[in-house]
């Protein structure tokens, strides 16, 4: 266990004690988690698209980790090609829940199925979700997908939950663990941001418009992106 993991783990353990107390007091699940946010350390997933080879390992690891049906995936990709042969460029970008600090989906969810966790990620109470699609209407990044859950036959919303069951134990989300090019990292938000800024500085020698995406959008994103070209070129970024 690394220092960072350990720290997160200890903080969570402390929070878990408080959560038990809340459970006894009958406060709703969502309210408990929000209270933890104040105690937990803000964490981030960092996606360095400049190292991604589009191997899809994160997607499949995530599907196994979260027992998703074959046709559902929390991680998708956008591709942007430009130029003409032989002066062509190809860029990829991970398209999955950006984990907005100011998350409109959490605000609109009528059943409080969506809630913020102590590390700042947007989690989903899968059982509570009624698949109404409200989140889909307000998501700035067109992330939520509503599908029928095969086992129950009920409509449900699918989106990345930042592997809540792992991060709550101080572990990394499955995508960060498996990534074969270390394009995905997970750690304290500030550390991830400074790592990203350093990397972007190096990238700017070759890609003058390289940037970190997610420092300010929606008051900061839990999924930070390193982009080699301007964000507006990608279909799901604003």
């Amino acid at each position: 266990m690394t220092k960072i993991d350990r720290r997160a783990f200890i903080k969570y353990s402390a929070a878990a004690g408080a959560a038990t107390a809340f459970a006894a007091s009958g406060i709703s699940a969502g309210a408990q988690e929000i209270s933890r946010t104040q105690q937990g350390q803000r964490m981030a997933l960092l996606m360095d698209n400049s190292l991604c080879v589009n191997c899809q390992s994160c997607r499949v690891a995530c599907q196994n980790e979260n027992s998703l049906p074959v046709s559902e995936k929390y991680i998708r990709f956008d591709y942007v090609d430009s130029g003409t042969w032989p002066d062509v460029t190809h860029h990829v970008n991970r398209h999955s829940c950006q984990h907005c600090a100011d998350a409109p989906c959490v605000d609109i969810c009528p059943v409080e199925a969506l809630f913020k966790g102590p590390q700042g990620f947007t989690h989903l109470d899968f059982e509570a979700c009624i698949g109404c699609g409200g989140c889909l209407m307000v998501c700035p990044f067109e992330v939520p997908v509503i599908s029928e859950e095969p086992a129950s036959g009920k409509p449900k919303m699918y989106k990345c939950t930042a592997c809540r069951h792992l991060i709550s134990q101080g572990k990394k989300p499955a995508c960060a663990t498996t990534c074969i090019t270390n394009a995905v990292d997970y750690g304290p938000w500030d550390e991830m941001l400074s790592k990203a800024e350093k990397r972007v500085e190096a990238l700017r020698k070759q890609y003058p418009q390289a940037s970190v995406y997610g420092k300010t959008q929606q008051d900061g994103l839990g999924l930070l992106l390193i982009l080699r070209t301007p964000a507006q070129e990608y279909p799901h970024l604003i």
Partner: protein
Amino acid sequence: MGIDRRTFLSHTAKAAVAAAALGVIDMRVWAQTVQDAPVVKKPSLCNMCTSECGMHIHVKNGRPWKVTGHPDHPVSRGKLCPRAHAGLHWIYDPARVKTPLKRVGEWQFEPISWEQATDQISDQLKRIIAEHGTESVFGAQYPRTTGSLYLNRLMHALGVSTTQSHEATCQAGRRIAMSHTFGAAFDADWENSDYLLFIGRNMGEAVRTASATAFAKAIERGAKVVCVDPRLSQSAAITEWVPIKPGTDLALLLALCNVLVTENLFDRQFISNHTNGFVPFRRHVVQYSPHWAEEITGVPAEKIRQIAHEMAAAAPHCAVDTGWKAAVGSCYANSTDTGRAVAYVNGLLGNIGQRGGISVPPGVVFATPQFPAPSAPTAPRNDGVGTEYPLASAESGLPHLTMQRAKEGKVKAGFIRHFNPVRSFPDYDHMRAGMRALDLLVVFETHMSETAIEAHYILPEPSFAEREEVVKAVGDTVAMRTKAIDSVHPQTKSFDEIITMLAYKLGVGEYFSFTLDQWNEALLADQPFSLADLKRAGTLAAEVSDEPVLPAGCGSLIPPEQQAPKERPRAFLVSGGDRNPVPQLFTPSGRFEFYSQRFANAGFEPIAKWYPPKTGLDLGSAEFRVVHGKQAYHSHVATNNIPILAQITKDYDTNRLWMNRSRAEQLGISDNDTIRMRARNGRTAEARVMVTERVHPDMLFSPAGYGNRTPYYKTSKELGGFNPHDLAEYQHETISGHTMMSELIVEVERA
């Protein structure tokens, strides 16, 4: 507390069963019980491609739940590619072979007992050997420790010389090339390199996990990484891309040699102390100027000169990656010599055994088990290795030539394990006809592959999660696969059991007087840990010698008696210093050989010279060269039947042929159109195209691994897709005998 999807799933799907079985009424309590069940992590090796990444299978409630990379294993280093994750879905695949099967008609089988199957096989094999001799038999496999031990030992015990692998469709050319220049097919030290040049190799999509990690680390560290490729691959997309006309890499490499030599940029000290044949080589490459190469390759002369100068400046901490299949393996008539030219550039840069250069690390050498062993057979081979192909690999053989002999009635029996040459070799009709001409074909498989369904007997093995195997030396570690779960199909038998059973029936049981555990213990005799330790850990650091240990299929092809006697270490751990000692190489001289006497003796050019692909470089106005390559989420026509991987193909529509946009416009073809292809040999096929700027105008890029023909693969059938082996014809390259997979030209029209 919110309910995650994992818990929710257990809850809804199993609630009824749970309530009945356990008397649990509160579903949340049950869900929590399922979630909280202990997870046992069993060490294993992935089975989805050649690399066998070390991993842990997480078993919960008796079922594998997920896999994670083994942190100590040198090929995975804690990471796994998508195929490894999807491999779990193979274990419970309904299409698995569950009992021994006997052929009763065209692709039709009925169950047979092990006793009957092995009796019938041994009776028939004895008769075939009595009537046609041991040269009429072959054994072939995807070469891994257990198969290499048991199948080859059985063949040798019977006096059969022809043992084969997939290499003629893989790195056959590279292995001969590297063996005859610097002794063996060593990799580059990617992670620590300052400058890496890749010739067609696509590290991000043709994945060996830790190699891809090292590749990305070099990029992240700021090393210059250049990918020469006729296509903007995912690897090229994150590095500097140098587009090239397909089949012309040899010209580019010879021009790099030219610049290094004529502009005095080579490593004089290395050349004089550690190489042979530099003088004739220097004379030879003078003709290959960058301007000459620009005409052939389309790479600007100035770019060629720039690469040579940059590499010389970074030397010796730089490398031309030694490739795998692609341009240097089995694609073109000139692939073997392209491989030699890769080696020449490295020789000129003096990077052998240097940090960031060609890596020659020490490895683990096992003790030799002392059980009675059969002597090496003396019977002639049936695939021309050692005769028509004096330099070709006897370990790997030439299965496509064996199928030709089978069609001629000279080969009668074959034993094939975990290998699907009917679909994975060019010319499906040729390979299938060869198999069907056999009197006895026995296939050891977990799945009903294209090769299995041509067999007279299919003998089923447990999946990788259910069996143990012979231990494996991987770099400076030893790794093994352990039994993670109980047998899913009780009628399956592990390969060691099957072969031992067959050996006794064939009268050669004396060579199998050991159990798998006893064999493994004997291999580990010199190691500081026991077999039990290894079974617990999966991967353990081991004693290393001063000999390098290479992955299967990468070792030297110079016979030991023709190698220079060992005078100094043949491997060194690369230190942080500027210069490391140069190891003794496995060549006849022990030095780097620009001039190969063995090539000359075999009737080949002692120094590689330029020649174009067999199909030439001039294409008709509607002609294209078909070149295939990997996607990271499929391998070897074996995975597109796995729904979770097939879904990626569906989501992104990635089993289309890539066609250059301007060529498409000239031919009136639009994105997603179906095209009709007619090969120069007259064969035809149809496929959908993706029109893109990312591919060379001469080339149709065919994503590999699609187009299964076995009716037993339902997902694959639904997915569809083109496989160029349906159009390619049986052919063999001159030096290594490989299959020349990209010597395939088609004329295209809109269907």
